[in-house]
């Protein structure tokens, strides 16, 4: 069996429509001036805009119909993520979608419909997963005691200040479990915001110590383990889609500058030293987008299979490497202008650093791909 055998690309009218709508909506609602206006805000997004997004049904697009979702699956969220990335639109869409997927996939029955209904209805939710910067670590010291009281902190919790719900990754009888925590349950000062390199994003350290879990808020069982594995992959995929969008916007910004700026009497875009690296970025981005759409074709509502895992990992490795290259070159090719905060190149190089470090960097994914592809 060839290591490159599966080249599935499924794409239907509905997806084309959502892609088109999302692209236009984000372009209109999130010009760069609007992005910059949010850089210093605590939540990092415009709540009115978020309500519009909820109205469009995007928060429930991948969730089942009985909780108010559209039941269209993650593949449709991918198109939205790419559009948001292209517009550099910071919202809790990624974190909410991933939280919804994790819980929906981890739940054998319908025990947590309240949570899912909230997410579908636009209450921001987030997954509190990491306890250290190592994506390959399985450390989990955020545990609950016999009385159902949580002890411990999580860091890098995305959109924590905005979140109405936290899905806390914990352990129960030695196996992975999830605890659903409402924002109201957190003690005063539990959320300490991070200062992120990407100022369009928000994350925080959250201390869950003292939170009393309701018994039905604890989700345990084999399916949690599977859902958690899928969470890492879906997270990688959505960040990859977002990164593809950002890389495209970054390339456009650079190309636009190269078409208008003159040096030594020539448009600088006519110099091969600048135009050929732009072609490299374009082809890197083309590869990333192909992986993203391929992965979107393979991820369904069930647990992800080997080919889907390969696709998600390739998408993440390629997309964030492409964005890092695009961001780095955007700064360089804007010359002195690129060295200023005023130039949009800084938004992209910062987004690139953030994207690379979500759900494992390219090296992390290639290491796992090697096992999947070479050890047969």
């Amino acid at each position, binding site marked *: 069996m060839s*290591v490159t055998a599966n080249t599935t690309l499924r794409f239907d009218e509905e997806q084309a429509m959502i892609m088109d709508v999302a692209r236009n909506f984000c372009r209109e609602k999130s010009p760069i001036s609007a992005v910059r206006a949010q850089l210093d805000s605590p939540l990092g997004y415009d709540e009115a805009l978020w309500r519009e997004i909820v109205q469009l049904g995007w928060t429930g697009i991948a969730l089942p119909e009985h909780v108010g979702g559209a039941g269209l699956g993650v593949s449709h969220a991918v198109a939205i993520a790419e559009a948001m990335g292209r517009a550099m639109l910071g919202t809790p869409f990624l974190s909410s979608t991933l939280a919804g997927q994790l819980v929906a996939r981890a739940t054998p029955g319908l025990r947590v419909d309240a949570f899912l209904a909230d997410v579908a209805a636009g209450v921001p939710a987030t997954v509190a997963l990491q306890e250290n910067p190592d994506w390959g670590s399985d450390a989990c010291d955020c545990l609950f005691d016999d009385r159902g009281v949580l002890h411990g902190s999580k860091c890098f919790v995305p959109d924590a200040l905005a979140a109405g719900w936290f899905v806390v990754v914990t352990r129960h009888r030695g196996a992975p479990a999830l605890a659903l925590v409402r924002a109201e349950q957190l003690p005063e000062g539990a959320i300490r915001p991070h200062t992120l390199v990407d100022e369009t994003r928000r994350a925080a350290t959250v201390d869950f110590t003292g939170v009393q879990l309701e018994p039905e808020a604890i989700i345990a069982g084999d399916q949690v383990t599977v859902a958690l594995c899928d969470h890492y992959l879906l997270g990688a995929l959505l960040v990859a889609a977002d990164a593809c969008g950002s890389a495209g916007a970054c390339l456009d910004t650079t190309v636009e500058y190269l*078409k208008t700026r003159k040096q030594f009497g020539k448009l600088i*875009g006519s110099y091969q030293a600048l*135009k*050929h690296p732009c*072609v490299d970025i*374009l082809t890197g981005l083309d590869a990333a987008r192909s*992986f993203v759409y391929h992965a979107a074709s393979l991820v369904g509502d069930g647990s992800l299979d080997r080919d889907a895992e390969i696709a998600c990992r*390739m998408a993440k490795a390629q997309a964030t490497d492409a964005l890092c290259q695009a961001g780095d070159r955007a700064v360089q090719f804007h010359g002195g202008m690129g060295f200023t905060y005023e130039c949009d190149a800084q938004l992209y190089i910062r987004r690139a650093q953030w994207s690379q470090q979500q759900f494992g960097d390219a090296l992390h994914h290639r290491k796992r791909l090697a096992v999947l592809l070479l050890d047969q």
Partner: protein
Amino acid sequence: MSATDQELKEFRGQVSAWLSDNKPADPGFLLPQSFMEVGTEQQLDFLREWQYQVWNAGYLGLAWPREYGGGGVEPVYQNIVDQEMRRHGVPICFNVIGLGWAGPLINDIGTEEEKARYLKGILTGEDIWCQGFSEPDHGSDLGSAQTRAVRDGDDYVINGTKIWTTLGNYAKYMILLARTNPDAGRKYDGLSFFLSPMHVPGIEARPIRKLTGEYGFTETFFTDARIPADCLMGEEGQGWKIAMQTLQYERGAEAGAAGGLAFERIVIDDMIAQLRDMTRDGEPLLSEPVVRDQLVRLIMEEKAIALGDKRAAIAPLNTDYPFSLQLSNKLRFSEYARRMRQTAVDLQGAAGSLYVGDEQARQGGFWQRAYFNSFSATIGGGTSQVQANIIAEHVLGLPK
């Protein structure tokens, strides 16, 4: 009336069975990896025999008219044959300029007489064709061709030099681009297109030794070579238009090509397979993490190319940079191929210093030769550097 799925499935089964039964045994010498690499009579005889067999079994030129040796059926049948040939890993059908350039052109715009005269010999492999477009001084710039064709009575008299003539020393015919009017306003308007015989006085095809040490191309010298005036295809001055028309046949049997494999596709699986029994520091090479990382990068590149080919056909997935995938295809593929082959040599350890002809060389030196030959694609048909300009200017809209 289109073939049903069932009919096609049965046909595929027949083809597959025939290929299983008839796939030639390893001849004991390295076969060319493409039609541009036929360097010995031994290789030529082998490939000619194979092409004849394929045609004789009814698996070549399936969409060409029956009266000229074709199959007279829909192109989809030929596609199935080609897919199965690829899957079975059989040798190439070497007469590529005939099958994929001259033949389709004659089918499309040739006279009845031309069809009757040329088409069957192309399919059987009896009449080898070559191409005379490139010239030594003009590299990627075909429109500047300087080879002269001067009408003299019932002949054209040809003078000039063509280069990179694949199979030039074996060919009976050449599709020739020559200048009939040096004073035309646009340089393209002075060019004409000929179906020229090769075996006439004044034509000398001198083999070019490639950096691999092997042959496969010639430099073709025309010195007052007289060819009959009816070798002119179309009218004088239509040469550029006709030459451009030949490019469309690259799109396969639907577009008119006869079919058959033009080159041996070397894929990453082939490379990984050859690495599987190698060691590094006494451990399996494939357990070395840095090598694994390198291989994953290459696998991703190859997979991205395959996915890109599919994605190129889905318009809504190409709204950002329309035609990016199409225009960059040659660059991406040829550069990937070069790096992949180079890596395959690099990873062989001391065996990487051996070459074709050494009994201890891995796969007879296949990868060493493949690496060197890969430059034909990064240089020929517009160098990678020129390709990058084209993409920058036509896809990204950067200034010239």
